[in-house]
């Protein structure tokens, strides 16, 4: 008796000398369920904005007064199912705190050091306004604004102030009533400014937004081009497969004529098992060739059992196995030799 030890998984790739060959792409197909993968990507895509929105600032606007005190206005998305929301303030010296919800109802707030516990009771958006004295320090003539912001923010500097030092790049800048309005990105920011009696305000030239726009445009065009290329590739691949199918369809009748009928096969191979005979009949009914997956579906057999049956038929010289589209194509042989 010729016993063959076959590993449980991916036996198709076990070659005759017993070495286990595993194709990387097949690992992907085997291990990753397509539906699961798509569902995961969709969940990630949906969760990213939700995750980044709940409990985070939608807007953050700061106004620095000439005495260095700063007014903060922020709009925050909060969990409508929560009773309260703990807001981290930018310091502990707070004045004139007002918190309202989306319906402009004044909400109760308890301040503890540099955090505020806001009783939201079902609100989904809150608007917080307060003055703070911890963000600006002064040494001689130089005022220093420092903030570690969790989000991008705008900063309106006082009238007649001139920036003389900065630690990071601004996103944008406008001049409003002789006041610099900067848009800055999240993270640590330190800006030094002085008050100058000299005429420091030169009109801000028309901002060259073309560069900005260009980058955006290039990215957009790039993205569209990639999508188009992929669509073309997909269409071409489909056409090819359609062609090959049609070609096979043309060839099929010729092959059909050449296929030996099942009765002859069974006469030539009388020792064939009954269940294997059913497989042969099915292959024959399908024009002499089927994918192994089709056989599994038809006979409701596990992958291993069907693979064994197919291998048995191959050993008996009844069928031959070909690889097509990364699948096993099982074909009835045209020349079947009589069993000895």
């Amino acid at each position, binding site marked *: 008796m010729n016993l063959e030890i076959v590993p449980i998984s991916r036996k198709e790739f076990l070659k005759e000398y017993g070495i286990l060959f595993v194709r990387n792409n097949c690992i992907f197909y085997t291990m990753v369920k397509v539906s699961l993968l798509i569902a995961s990507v969709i969940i990630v895509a949906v969760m990213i904005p939700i995750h980044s929105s709940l409990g985070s600032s939608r807007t953050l606007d700061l106004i620095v007064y000439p005495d260095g005190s700063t*007014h903060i206005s922020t709009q925050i998305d909060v969990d409508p199912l929560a009773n309260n929301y703990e807001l981290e303030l930018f310091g502990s010296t707070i004045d004139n705190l*007002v918190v*309202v919800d989306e319906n*402009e109802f004044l909400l109760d707030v308890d301040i503890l050091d540099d955090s505020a516990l806001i009783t939201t009771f*079902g609100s989904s958006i809150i608007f917080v*306004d307060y003055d703070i004295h911890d963000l600006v320090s002064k040494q*001689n003539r130089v005022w220093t604004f420092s903030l570690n912001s969790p989000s991008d923010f705008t900063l309106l500097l006082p009238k007649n102030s001139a920036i*003389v030092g900065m630690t990071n790049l601004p996103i944008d800048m406008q001049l409003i009533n002789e006041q610099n309005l900067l848009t800055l990105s999240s993270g640590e920011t330190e800006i030094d400014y002085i008050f100058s009696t000299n005429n420091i305000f030169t009109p801000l030239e028309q901002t060259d937004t073309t560069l900005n726009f260009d980058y955006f445009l290039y990215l957009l065009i790039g993205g569209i081009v990639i999508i188009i290329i992929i669509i073309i590739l*997909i269409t071409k691949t489909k056409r090819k497969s359609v062609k090959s199918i049609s070609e096979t369809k043309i060839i099929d009748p010729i092959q059909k004529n050449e296929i030996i009928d099942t009765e002859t096969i069974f006469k030539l191979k009388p020792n064939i098992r009954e269940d294997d005979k059913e497989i042969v009949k099915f292959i024959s009914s399908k024009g002499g060739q089927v994918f192994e997956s089709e056989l599994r579906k038809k006979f409701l057999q596990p992958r291993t059992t069907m693979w064994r049956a197919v291998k048995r038929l191959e050993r008996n010289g009844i069928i031959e196995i070909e690889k097509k589209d990364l699948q096993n194509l099982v074909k009835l042989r045209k020349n079947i030799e009589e069993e000895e």
Partner: protein
Amino acid sequence: MNTLTFFVIFVLVFGILFTSLINDVYAQNNPDILIHIATQADKQIQNQLNEIFNNSIPVEIKLLYDKGHLSVKSLKNSLPDDVEKSKKDFLTAMKSFKQISKIISKSTSTTKITTSEISEIDFSSQLDRLEKYIKTLKTISKKHDTSVDFTKVYDLFKDARNQVNNGVGNPSETIDQLKYHIISIEEKIRNSSSHGLSDRIKQFVNKQVNSIEEKLEKALESGATKTQIDKAHKLIEEIRDLISKNQISDAKIVFHELNKLLRNIELSVD
């Protein structure tokens, strides 16, 4: 796996990446603004150096200024073609100017003071901030049609401004009066708008209490002590009673207590 699946995955992944790329690109490029800020800073530092040192600028500062000034020049030249270089030039220039400002400040003053230490004396800024505060309250008042009278507050603002601008009277006293009135206005608005808020809180608390009751049942099954569960049920009864009597503020307090107890129950079960 068919090609359509690949395509769907690609679109989703590309969509996620593309949105983050847009933000990134937007946040990093606005070249003319960089030139404007750097040139302004250059001029200011130059003025300051001339004012303080005249023609005898210390070598250390001179070197820093030259470095900053050259970076501003390079920034102008590198735009619009080399955005990356312009960013580097901008940061180099601004850091050099910042260092110069620090050195100058240290040489003339030893202590660094925070705003809270100086805000007391700047009545004008204080009034600006209070005005913004009252403006916010007025918007809320208008929205809820509270008919709160703001006349007295605006009169006080007028008086305080006059006192600050003309240097007469005691602006500090007027500002204290203003603060007192603002607090009472806020209280009035809170009371006037409380009806609408109460309705929303009632709905919220009722919904939450129902879900808490379900949680308590599960907690009891999971081995929470009966004493704790009974206590929670008592609090729920109390909340319902307070809500029916329209005592929303008290209901809120008991609700917070219930939430604390629920957290303890959940912890004991875990």
